[in-house]
């Protein structure tokens, strides 16, 4: 279907980039593979900055009554550490995989809306810069990653930090929403012929479910953020307790978003592991349908548990009991997945290389985090654990030992596909063991000090409390983790530049991305594949069909063309964002820029008619 060739009442002539090179190529690219790499590299840099913030926190806590950072800086550190890791680290690292892998796994030449995809990346980048620039512009947000109102209202928090947090999160939210719209449509509508839903690779399934969660959850926090922004900027009363505002409103809105958000963080990781384990166990995934249904059930139940973050706010015994039960229920489908992964490996001819080590690391760490999760799902016992280091231990077992380990596994697994080169296996294994041992020594003792009553978010503690020994151990081990990450960076840079060449299918892979060369050509598939079963590529390899040489001429494939507009729209959003913090006139200018560039974008055809 073609669209109405709309006529513009004014002329916007910025001639389209034709065959851009160098920096211009990266700025105007709409190739999902390049955008995936931009996402990955940017998010990894953000992950490093979040890691530095973590090290500063651990250094400050290494001994009792240390004065390495001031208390108010400490508040900013833990707020920025969590905000960074969640919104600028794990989520965009997952998005990097979505971008690079999904079109390849479903046999498509690109995503459904390539320019929207570029827009997602640039908006993410500007959102990240807004958030991080707060360090240099008078102080970062300091109210925790959940930013509870009313403590974030101007009455209690007059500085600019919270404004950076509000604006940054909204810009990042736009990026995530745009990306999720795109991936939902892509997965529904761009599948290769024969690739029915129950033949989709599990990573694609997890991406699909994650994207659905995201489009439903992000509007809720967006409304909460807008309400807080209206309060702070225009003196509305949403969180003004003097006007009778309910201090629990924010908590409800935030956690209705916040709990689905944890599945937004973990489901892609589960998808990655579900790709790696079958490949290296040389077996199909055990219980494919159960895996899909379990994930769908987890995603659905994720909406019915938010108040387990609020057990101690006095919702009453009925509410607490209900949310205890719904929360515990989620352990069931999670257990199903756990057993399916074990079943996949059971009896398999497992090759313990770096991706498998990280995946097995994920299974064991996520299991421990899951068990402590069930412990505080029980509202009576949560009264003791709420806001202690026990929770910090839990969150890091599921997000560091869980999500980050799986993401590292995925980077190693698909590294040959991304770069056309192999990583260094020895360095990879050293990287794994340092991170695995380091993470356990860092986070396991937090269970102990948490049970002894050490609260979260305190900048120091008294030597009389008896927490000094374990805190010292944790801080030391945090540097071990950091050293492990350093080895990872060395491995990546070294291998990207000079690693041995990898062919298209170095792992005897099962899914479509392995059926093409590494790195894939710009058009991905010369001929769109025809899919006949789950793990279609693997089955076709078993039949040893001589692949027929394709007669398609790559030059005949029309790909969407590069465009300036996505980046310029994002830039307009960033200007509007800073405008809200500093000056409403600037905000208006930014919004006007968004309006003009969005129009120019809509009138720019996906392909110039004369460029064939």
């Amino acid at each position: 279907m073609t669209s109405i060739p709309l006529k513009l009442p004014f002329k916007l002539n910025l001639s389209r980039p034709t065959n851009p090179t160098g920096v211009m190529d990266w700025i105007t690219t709409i190739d999902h593979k390049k955008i995936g790499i931009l996402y990955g590299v940017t998010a990894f840099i953000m992950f490093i900055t979040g890691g530095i913030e973590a090290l500063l926190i651990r250094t400050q806590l290494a001994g009792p009554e240390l004065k390495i950072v001031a208390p108010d800086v400490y508040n900013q550190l833990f707020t920025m550490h969590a905000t960074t890791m969640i919104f600028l680290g794990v989520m965009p690292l997952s998005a990097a995989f979505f971008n690079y892998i999904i079109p390849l796994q479903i046999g498509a030449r690109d995503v459904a809306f390539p320019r929207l995809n570029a827009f997602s990346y640039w908006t993410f980048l500007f959102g990240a810069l807004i958030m991080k620039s707060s360090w240099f512009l008078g102080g970062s947000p300091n109210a925790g990653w959940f930013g509870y109102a009313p403590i974030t209202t101007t009455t209690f928090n007059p500085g600019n930090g919270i404004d950076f947090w509000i604006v940054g999160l909204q810009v990042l939210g736009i990026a995530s929403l745009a990306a999720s719209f795109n991936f939902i449509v892509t997965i529904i509508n761009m599948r290769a012929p024969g690739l029915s839903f129950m033949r989709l690779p599990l990573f694609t399934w997890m991406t699909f479910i994650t994207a659905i969660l995201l489009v439903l959850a992000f509007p809720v926090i967006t409304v909460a953020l807008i309400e807080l922004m209206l309060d702070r900027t225009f003196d509305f009363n949403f969180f003004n307790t003097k006007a009778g505002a309910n201090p629990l409103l924010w908590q409800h809105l935030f956690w209705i978003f916040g709990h689905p958000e944890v599945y937004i963080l973990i489901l892609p990781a589960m998808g990655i592991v579900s790709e790696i384990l079958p490949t290296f166990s040389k077996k199909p995934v055990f219980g494919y349908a159960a895996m899909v249904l379990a994930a769908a059930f987890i995603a659905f139940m994720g909406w019915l548990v938010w108040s387990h973050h609020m057990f101690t706010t006095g919702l009453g015994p009925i509410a607490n009991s209900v949310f205890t039960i719904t929360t515990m229920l989620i352990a069931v489908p999670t257990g199903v997945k756990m057993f399916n992964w074990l079943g996949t490996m059971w009896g398999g001819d497992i090759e313990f290389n770096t991706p498998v080590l990280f995946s097995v690391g994920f299974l064991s760490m996520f299991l421990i985090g899951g068990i402590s999760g069930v412990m505080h799902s029980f509202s009576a016992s949560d009264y003791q654990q709420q806001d202690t280091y026990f929770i910090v231990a839990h969150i890091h077992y599921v997000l560091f030992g869980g999500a980050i380990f799986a993401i590292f596994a995925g980077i190693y697994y698909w590294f040959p596909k991304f770069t056309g080169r192999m990583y260094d296996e020895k360095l990879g294994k050293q990287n794994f063991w340092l991170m695995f041992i380091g993470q356990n020594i860092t986070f396991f003792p937090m269970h102990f000090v948490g049970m002894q009553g050490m609260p979260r978010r305190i900048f120091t503690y008294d030597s009389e409390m008896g927490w000094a020994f374990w805190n010292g151990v944790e801080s030391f081990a945090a540097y071990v983790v950091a050293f492990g990450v350093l080895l990872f960076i060395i491995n990546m840079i070294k291998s990207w530049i000079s690693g041995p060449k990898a062919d298209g299918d170095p792992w005897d892979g099962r899914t479509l991305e392995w059926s093409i060369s590494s790195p894939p050509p710009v058009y991905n598939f010369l001929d769109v594949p025809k899919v006949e079963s789950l793990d279609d590529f693997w089955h076709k390899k078993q039949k040893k069909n001589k692949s027929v040489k394709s007669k398609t001429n790559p030059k005949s494939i029309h790909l969407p063309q590069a465009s300036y507009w996505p980046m310029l729209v994002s830039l307009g959003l960033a200007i509007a964002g800073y405008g809200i913090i500093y000056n409403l006139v600037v905000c208006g200018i930014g919004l006007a820029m968004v309006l003009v560039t969005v129009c120019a974008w809509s009138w720019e055809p996906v392909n110039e008619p004369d460029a064939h």
Partner: protein
Amino acid sequence: MSDETTTGIDNRKLLMWVFLGSDCMFFASLIGTYLIYKGTGNLDIGPVDVFDIPTTSVSTFVLLMSSMSMVFAYAYLVRNNINAFRIWMVSTIIMGATFLGFQVFEFSEFYFHYDLSPQTNLFGTTFYALTGTHGLHVTVGVVWLAIIFYSSLFRNSVSAETNLDLDLAALYWHFVDIVWIVIFAVVYLFGTFPGFPS
């Protein structure tokens, strides 16, 4: 890029549906906030004092009729009757703008006559935020329809085969209309209904 999709549904149409699903959650959160705060805080001025149900019923009726007019516009476009299409487009746009006019009138009435601002109390805060957000949605819709109408004035730029742009705009327009029905019921009718707890 081939224009065919796996399901046969156009990508942009699917995108619109997903966006509307997301937008549902957006309005649900705003309406939720309104309901949580209903009847709390400073009650010196509230729904019973300011709402003029007959007037708002008229504007609601106008918006409802604009949806019907939208259906006619689309039907005539599909039948390639461009002149009738244009007439119904104009009528849709005028009715949308009329609704916005009513809202401007209502806001200024509340603000100048009753001294109700978003800063006054929780009712003011939640009422203006919710209905203002809806008004913004209507404004976007009116502008969108106006652009399509404007381009239809040029030869061959709008025809039955290329009805998707109008289809998307119509989908959006009906959605915004439905949201208003919910707001009108929850905020206006339940807010002033005598037996209903306020």
